[in-house]
């Protein structure tokens, strides 16, 4: 037994060996993909259903509140959401919220959606990109204010500097009264959205978020404050499956399964080492 323990022990450069193994397994998982069946979670299904069931002609505030570091987790959800919205006839207000890189993410996702950059319809009439606004919750609160927060909080201009007076879509959008659904890609746990959109104004909320924030987001979904949620790349892949357009999330998940097995292996090895060490400490041979 002790020989086995010594064999699996990695005394020097332990972290480097682990990094190397993870990267090797990741490369292997892409060159030899193992596609495990993907079951759609209730939260993902609720996210999809809420968008599909929304009557035509409603106004959706779609926030891209994530940055390039979260692209792997949320890029797929963002593109899949755009693909889904294309099939509907709603007005889409795309906002980076308080994410400095949000504008870049919007541009990237619009370019990668099915049908290309202008697939959502005519700019300024069917959809618009709103500018970045600093301040997180104070900015959201200002946006929702009556009588004209959606204009004044954003300096009366869109992302490209065009006056909102020249954008027909903004004629009917002034405050919280004109928003029928908030979809937030990257919500930092959804607390901000629930506090500033859901609780004070009753706006239905959908959130796609990274796995780190899932524990908080799940709480809001369970208590009904958020209608549905996408969990990281796995949830994004489920949404791609529901829409029927496989994208970057589906390919990411193919590699994820094998890596999880590796992590489980590390946990098992670590525990065996720990228990063996404790056994030796107590005088076992």
């Amino acid at each position: 037994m002790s020989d086995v323990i010594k064999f699996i022990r990695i005394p020097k450069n332990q972290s480097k060996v682990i990094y190397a193994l993870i990267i090797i397994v990741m490369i292997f998982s892409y060159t030899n993909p193992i596609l495990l069946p993907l079951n759609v979670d209730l939260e993902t299904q609720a996210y999809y259903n809420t968008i599909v069931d929304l009557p035509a002609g409603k106004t959706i505030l779609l926030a891209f509140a994530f940055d390039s570091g979260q692209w792997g987790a949320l890029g797929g959800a963002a593109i899949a959401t755009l693909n889904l919205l294309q099939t509907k006839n709603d007005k889409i207000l795309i906002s980076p919220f308080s994410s400095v890189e949000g504008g870049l993410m919007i541009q990237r996702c619009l370019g990668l959606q099915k049908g290309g950059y202008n697939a959502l319809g005519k700019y300024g009439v069917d959809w618009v990109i709103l500018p970045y606004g600093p301040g997180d919750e104070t900015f959201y609160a200002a946006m929702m204010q009556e009588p004209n927060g959606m204009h004044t909080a954003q300096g009366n201009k869109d992302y490209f500097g065009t006056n909102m007076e020249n954008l027909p879509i903004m004629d009917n959008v002034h405050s919280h009264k004109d928003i029928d659904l908030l979809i937030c890609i990257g919500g930092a746990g959804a607390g901000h959205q629930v506090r500033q959109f859901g609780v004070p104004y009753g706006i239905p909320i959908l959130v796609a978020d990274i796995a780190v924030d899932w524990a908080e987001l799940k709480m809001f979904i369970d208590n009904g404050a958020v209608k549905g949620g996408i969990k990281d790349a796995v949830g994004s892949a489920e949404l791609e499956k529901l829409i029927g357009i496989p994208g970057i999330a589906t390919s990411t998940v193919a590699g994820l399964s094998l890596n999880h097995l590796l992590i489980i292996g590390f946990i098992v090895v670590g525990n065996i080492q720990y228990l063996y060490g404790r056994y030796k400490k107590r005088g076992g041979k």
Partner: protein
Amino acid sequence: MAWEVNNVIAAILVIGVISIAFKDNIFFKFVERIFIGITLGITLTAAYGVIVNNGIIPILQGNYLVIVADIMGLLLLSRFSKSYSWLSRYTLALIVGMSLAIFTRTAISALIIGSIAAVVNTPLITNNLLGTVSNLYAWVGLVAGLVYFVFTTGGIPKQGKPIFNIFSRIGRYTIMIYFGVYFGSTVLGRETVLLERISFVLRTFGIIP
């Protein structure tokens, strides 16, 4: 996509970032500085746009109240002067006070009442065993988690209160499970980020389609 110049440059930079996992090196430092430079550039550009749109143009259009906000903003720069740095405290106080008011006005309803109501409305018995066990766990976990933070019965262990001790221990395990789930989710999230970049590098060099 394979071997496109833009992507090849990006893929080389990704390899530069990953190289820190093995040893600190000059290639990583080079990539790190590029990253910081670009991030700062984007942030400054975004901030400039906000200042012009919200702080200057409205004044030119006759909204002179914005001058007050601009002055408050300029006061923040007084931090660079030893003699006048105290002036920045007024602006900071305003920012903190306003933010706190906006954060907390709905926090109780969103974070506390909503969650308690959800648990209270959760039926103990459902039509499937897994659902029943899950709901039972939610109830016990909530009560036990709260008991763990009750310190008025004699501290921990809560002397002479065996029921409290049992629930306190269950509460401790519940909290530990939560942290475990949180940590597991963190690993999952970070792995996803690396996976996507690895697939990007492999695609860029034509190793996978």
